[in-house]
Structure formats: C-alpha cells, structure tokens
C-alpha cells in the first residue's frame, strides 16, 4: 500500500502543476490542458474501481474469520452480483471510451490560419524549417522552435533516417516522425514560456540526447525573432570572429554546415547561421556559451558519444577563433 499512499499524496500536487519544464502534468498548451483533464478523470475513476476491488477482496478474506459466516454459496445471488459487476465495468469503459473520443475531437479542432513549421527528425537532432512563399524569407534552424502564444501552429513532422517521436509534453501529446510519411501535430501555447521536449521513439545511440525547445513568445517578440532569423547576420564581427570565419570556411566544417551569406552551404548538419542565438547546442546537450562551443568543436565524441559530427583537428588559436565566430552568429 505504501506506494499508493505516496502516489495519492503526490499526484494531486503534481496535477496542480509545480514540476519541471518537461511534464504532462505541467500543461501550458491547449492540447496538454485537455489531456491533463482527461488524465485526471481517468485517474480518479480507476482509483475508485481499484479500491472497490481491493476492499471486496479484503472483506472476502476476512469474512470467514470475523464471524461464523455461511460458506454455503448462494449461487443465484452471486451470479447476479457478478453479472452486475460486469455490467458496471462495461458502463465505466463505455464512458471512458466516449470521453477519449471527445477529447481527441477537441484537440484536433483547429483554425485554418495556422502557422506551418516543418520539423525533420535526424539522428540525433531536430531540423526546423520555417517555410515561406517568398523563398528569400525561408530559413532553417535546429533544436529550437519559436512560436507565438495563443496561435495555432501546425508542425509537419518528417524523418530523414529512422523513426523519431516529437514530444513536448507541456504543450501536446506526442507524434511520430516516420520515414516515407508526413504526420502533422497541432500545438498552441496558452502562456509564454520555454517548453522542453525530447525524442520519444528509440532512434539509436544518442536517443537520450535529442531534446527540443519550444519558445512561446508574445506576438511582438515572435515577430522580432522571426525577422532576425530571416536575415543572414545581425551583429558586426570583430577581427577574431572574422579569422574564425576564414578557418571555418577552409576546414571541413563548411562541407556539413550552412552559414547563410558565406560559401558554407553543407546540409548534413544543422544550419549555423544563428547558432549563437540558440539556447543550447548538441540538441539540448549544453547551454550555448563560447566555452561550450569550443568544447563541443574540440571533442564532440566525448560530449555525445556516437553522434555524427567528426572531430576536426584545430590548433588552439583556430579553436578560439572558430568558437568566437560561432558565438558571434547571433
């Protein structure tokens, strides 16, 4: 009984929402709020049914000990009670099925004017594309999606290699990214905030380190972010950063990465045009600082063993310059 008591004490408090940045119980998206309501309903119904069954069992066990109870079974009454219990079970599961059905319907209802963002799962990071009819305003980023609060956003989910699953529990339930298919997931954040998620379908060696952040901003900040991402570069660079750019373009880095406005146009790895503005590197692995960028570039295989970024030998000067350059790509 211990875990049950623990659970009863803990569950309502988590339901009231005090947990971390990645929790189905800390709901801030319209889907997640619907789901949390459904889950709470299921929880109380199931707890009640379980208690009923266990209390019956305990009473049945104690019955013949507590008093001289008749053990000559009354077959007719027992049959009626068992049939009644089955009928009650049928009623409960019918109600729960209907509740599920309507919750699904409520989640899938959407305004037609949703923003569309393409999310492509790759081993082991997320390629994010903001499509635009004007191709010059279209851009790619990685592992971080910005959305405006209170607006429907349609995520087009695709995979470049194996099956992944997109799950940001505080906003919505999960949806798989299946090679050869395109799935969609509708999200809407009700409150501004940073919501963490991570890949939920086993996708190989670094499945554990494949996080994504959804940053929900008010309309104004979102528009500002969008504008800054659409242009090639925001800040002027110092000499060290410019030297870093030269190294970056000369070394194999540019074969896999794109930095718009330069000759670097590789598409194997994440687009780095605004890498310095993202919260983390390595798909949620470490916070983006100049130091962490340098550590990552110097030895990506120790930080995230098995990932697809090779170690590119650099001198310490070059490393300093490249990390400065990356940090400058705001």
């Amino acid at each position, binding site marked *: 009984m*211990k*875990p049950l008591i*623990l*659970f009863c004490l803990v569950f309502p408090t*988590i339901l009231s929402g005090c*947990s*971390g*940045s*990645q*929790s*189905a119980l800390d709901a801030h998206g319209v889907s997640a709020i*619907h*789901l949390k309501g*459904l*889950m709470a309903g299921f929880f109380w119904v*199931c*707890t009640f049914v*379980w208690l009923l*069954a266990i209390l019956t*069992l305990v009473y*049945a*066990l104690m019955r013949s000990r507590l008093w001289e109870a008749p*053990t*000559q*079974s009354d077959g007719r009454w*027992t*049959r009626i*009670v*068992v049939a009644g*219990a089955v009928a009650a*079970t*049928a009623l409960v*599961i019918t109600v*729960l099925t209907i*509740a*599920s*059905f309507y*919750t699904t319907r409520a989640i899938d209802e959407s305004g037609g004017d949703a923003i569309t963002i393409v999310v492509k799962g790759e081993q082991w990071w997320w390629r994010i594309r903001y499509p635009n009819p004007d191709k010059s305003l279209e851009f790619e980023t990685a592992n971080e999606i910005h959305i405006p609060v209170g607006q429907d956003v349609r995520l087009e989910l695709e995979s470049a*290699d194996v*099956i992944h*699953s997109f799950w940001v*529990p505080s906003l919505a*339930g*999960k*949806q798989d990214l*299946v090679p050869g*298919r395109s*799935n969609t997931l509708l999200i809407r954040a009700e409150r501004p905030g940073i919501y963490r*998620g*991570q890949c*939920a379908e*086993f*996708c*190989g*060696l670094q*499945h*554990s380190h494949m996080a994504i952040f959804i940053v929900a901003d008010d309309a104004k900040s979102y528009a500002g972010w969008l504008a800054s991402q659409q242009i090639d570069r925001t800040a002027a660079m110092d000499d060290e950063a410019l030297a870093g750019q030269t190294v970056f373009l000369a070394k194999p880095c540019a074969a896999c990465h794109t930095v718009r406005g330069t000759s670097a146009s590789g598409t194997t790895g994440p687009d780095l045009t605004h890498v310095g503005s993202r919260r983390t590197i390595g798909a*949620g692995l470490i916070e983006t600082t100049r130091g962490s960028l340098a550590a990552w570039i110097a030895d990506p295989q120790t930080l995230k*063993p*098995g990932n697809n970024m090779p170690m590119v030998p650099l001198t310490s000067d070059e490393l300093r310059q490249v990390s400065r350059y990356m940090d400058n790509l705001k």
Partner: protein
Amino acid sequence: MTAIAPDRDTRDSHLAEVELQRHLSTTWGSASGVWGALSNVDHKVIGRRYIVTAFVFLALGGALSLAMRLQLSQPEARFIGPDRYNQIFTMHGTNMMFLFAVPVMEAMAVYLVPLMVGTRNIAFPRLNAFSYWMFLAGGILLWVAFAIDTGPDVGWFAYVPLAGPQYGTGKRADIWAQMITFTEISALAVSLELVVTIFKQRAPGMSLNRIPLFVWSMLVTSFLVILAMPAIMIASTSLILDRLVGTHFFNPAEGGDVLLWQHLFWFFGHPEVYIIFLPAVGMVSTIVATFTQRPVFGYLAMVMALITTGVLAFGLWVHHMFVAGLPRLGESFFTASSMAIALPAGLQIFCWLATIWWGRPIFKTPFLFVLGFIFTFVIGGMTGVMVASVPFDTQVHDTYFVVAHFHYVLVGGALFPLLGAIYYWFPKFTGRMMSERLGKWVFGLIVVGFNLTFFPMHILGLQGMPRRIYTYQPEMLWGGLNMFISLSVLILTAGFLLFFIDVVRSAFHGRPAGANPWRASTLEWATPSPPPCYNFQRVPVVSDSVPLWSDGEVLSVASGLRVDRRELLVTGVVDASPEARESSPGHSVWPFWTALATTIVLIWSIFTPWAVVWGAIPVAIALTGWFWPKGTPEDES
C-alpha cells in the same frame, strides 16, 4: 491400429500392482547417462529442463535490469555507455519475453497438462524434445552474442529502419531476428503438442466441461501461439531478407513501408501478452480453487472469458501504434476494442472474488501470491485502460508510465501467479515441499519490492521521462525518483535470491510431500510425487470436474492398455469417450541431432543465404534418422 492378436498382448488388466509397475517402468523408462539424457522424450523430464532453463534466463535478465538501474540511478552517470546500454535494454526485453515468459508458461504446461488430463505422455514427444533443444540453442545464441559485444541493440521490437540494413549495421539485428526463429519454432511445436494432447488424450469422461481451468487456458494460449507466431515469422524473415539479400520490404525509398513492420510485429506482439497472461490466469484459478477448497465460481463464464480474451487479443495491436500517425477513426475503434478486454479480465477477477468470498481461504504461499497478483495486476489493468485511450496514450506512450504499466501486467499478472504456481506444484515436481516460512518472506520482499520499484515509474513517465534512454540531464529533476527506484530494486532482488535459495534447498532437504499435500482436486495429484515415468499406473476415469474431491480416496480407473510397449488412450474431442489405443514414440537421440543441424543452418544463414541450401542437407539426414523405423514395438504398430 494394431495388427497383433489381442491374446498375445500384455495388458494392464491382467497384472497385479507390483508386476504392473515393473512392466511400465521398463517400457516407459529411459536410458541413463549422457546418451539417455539426450534421447529422453518424457514430458516431465523435458518440462523440468524447460522450467529450469527459463528460470536461468530470468536470473540473467534480472541481472541486466540491475545494470540498467545502476546506470539510471543518477543523472549523466557513466557506468555504462550508450552502446552497451542499448544492448542491455534490448537483451532484457528480448530475453524476458522470448526466453523466459513464453517458454516458462509452455514449460509448465509441458510438465502439467499430460498429468492434469490423465495421460502417459504428451502428444509428439520427440517434437517436444526437439522444441527444447531449439529453445536452448536460441537462448545460447543470444547470450553468446551479447557476451562478445554483438548483442542486439535495436529494442525487443526491432523497429525498422533502425533495425534495417542501413542503420542497423553489423550482425546485431540479425542475431535478434534469428533468435526469434528459434523461439517461434519451439513455441509452435509445443503449442501443437498441447492442442493434440488436450483434444485427444484426455482421461475417459473428461468431457469439455470437466477440463481443469489451467488446461483450458493452455488450450486457448496454444491457439494464440499458432495464430500469432506466423506474423512475427513473416516479419523477422522479411527483415532478414532485407538485411541479407537486399529486398526492400521495409525501405520507403523503394516502395517499402516502415509501418508494415509495426503492424506485423504487434499483430504478434499483442497476442504475445495474452500468451503470457492466460496461462497465469489458469494458474490463479487452480490455486484459488485449492486454497478455498471449492471449485472456482462460474466455470462456464471463466472458460468463455478465456476464449473471449483470446479472440479480442487479435483486435488490439494498433494500440501500440497510436502515435504513428494512423487515421483517427481507426484508432478510436482500437480504443474501444482495447477497453473491451477489461470485460473478460474483470469477469475473471469477479469470479475469483466470489470463490474466495464463499470459501475459507488457507493462507499458504501459493495463495499469497494470488493475492499479490490481484492487488498488483488490477493496478496494471487500470493503467491498461488508460493507455488504451488514444489521447491519454499520446502523453504516456514510450515513457516510463508504459514501462510501469507493462511490468505491472507482466510481473504482477504473470510472474506472481507463476511463483505461486512453483510453490504450488514444486511438491509434485520434486516430491518435496518448499519452505512456508521462507515462502512468506519471498512473497513479502517480492511484492513490496516490486511495487516500490515500479510504482514511481508512473510518475516519472508523466513527468516526461521517455523509455530507452541511457541517461538524463540533471536539470530534469528525475534524479530523486530514479535513485529511489534503484534502491527499491535491491528489495526485489533480495526476494528473488531468497526464492532461488529456497528452491535449491527444498529440492534436497524439503519435507517429503506425499501425493496430494494441498488436498487439490485435479488429476496430477492422483499419482505419487514426483510422478513415475508412466505418470499413472492405470488411466484414471473422470466423472466430474473435481475428480479427487468427489471420489475420495479411490479414483476410478480404466484398464486394457498394453504395457509391453508405450501405449496411451485416445479419446473423443468433446466427451472424451475412449476411441482407440495409440502407441507413443519411445526415446530417440535424433530430435537432438535435428535441432543441432537446424541450429547450424539458422546461425550460418546470418552470414550467407547459401547456408539455407547447403545446411538443408544435414537437416534432411537428421530428419531421416528421426523417422527411420528402428524395429521397436512402437514402430511396428
């Protein structure tokens, strides 16, 4: 059937008891030594081997879970790297499902069903021996591969394309797929034997409405195996073809489909759950009846519930794919069908409760495990209703909530009854009782340890912790509960260690049991413990569903079987009226050679498709040897 004139037969009807035992022992006994062991076809010997082997795999799989709990006890721990960890969780799942849970249930049936229906050996006893060797070889293949760092690392479900030729490099996924072939061969063989044994070898008078509930559950289970295994056979063979000879069944770039794998796998994979659960249900019914000293309430309802569960089991597989992006309407159908399974499951629980209600429960260890089962399994059933709901599932699918759910269902729903069943039937297997005192400790440690270990996983799942991650970051706040779980595992482990100690100790020093220590009602208790090689001196005759309760000390028997060769009675499917005498094959070493030859083909074919061609030759030779008449009395009939 027999051409020999009746007056030259040696029949059991003419013989006195001592003379009869001497004849039967000579006819049904097996040779001693290594050769005798390799050629034995006695269902009890093979069943015992099966059970012991499966429990060895349980211990190995348990050791893997300890390794995982060590790695997950704190964030960003570096005890085990991602490569090894992925192998470990794949091995844990594969091992527990394919090498422990399914085989151990079939093993119990191989031992018990012929005794419970009152016959002298299982149908197709040589196939039975073959199935054990195949199972053993498959298990060894998997564990040797793991030991040399070639263990599968793609999950026990081996989703493509991760397990396909492009991403699953090396031989790891091939090992997994081929291990499936081994276990599906052995499971199919055992299921066929059980179906035939149950349909055609029941004691006279054991009509369909008098079959013990455990036997009913094994009959339904066997049909599930026969109907579900072909799906995984197609799936694993297609995967091997994709990997080995370059077909494109699962390659979307060439018109294949990755979801096809999931459909095929879960069309097998969901019934698999009931293949494990239904035998456990049969065990619970048996134990409840014995320890309340009354038949389970609602025999017909119980049988119907078993059959309904078996049918519904094939209509649920899509609930494993609720987030794969299938059409919503279809998913709603599978929500309804998944919820519907609560009806037969509920009905059985209610019938057990009714039985306990009217009985005077005897609190011995097997019964305690049944109580632990009801307590725990109903929680698993409740979370099962939760994950059956499409919207609910989108939040908990592939999280620790699901890990908690299926451990509640499989450990609570199948392993607890199995442990109860071991305590219950151990006296029959060995002739000695297990310790009641230790048994209560085992029960307490395992049930408490289990709940402390797995209950918090529900919360972790809701807090966003996905399955199959080898580590997590400190800022995720999962560290506390994970440490709690890792410590709780120690209680669970202590319980299992004590169980194994009790088993070994009792096997040598346990109190002698006698034929029927629990005053049970079914036929396996009508013969000494452990049963002689011929099971029953004379074939029992049954006139109701609780033969040992209604007939008192003396059980009616039939006579007329020959004792100079292995012969058993074939009876009608419905009313079990005697139809014929049929000879039962004697011991043979050829099933062993056939299994060895098949093993070579299957392992060789991981490396080259030509193995199927050249390897067929030794298999053909071994099979010829198997079926070649050797002039034994059984061959002549």
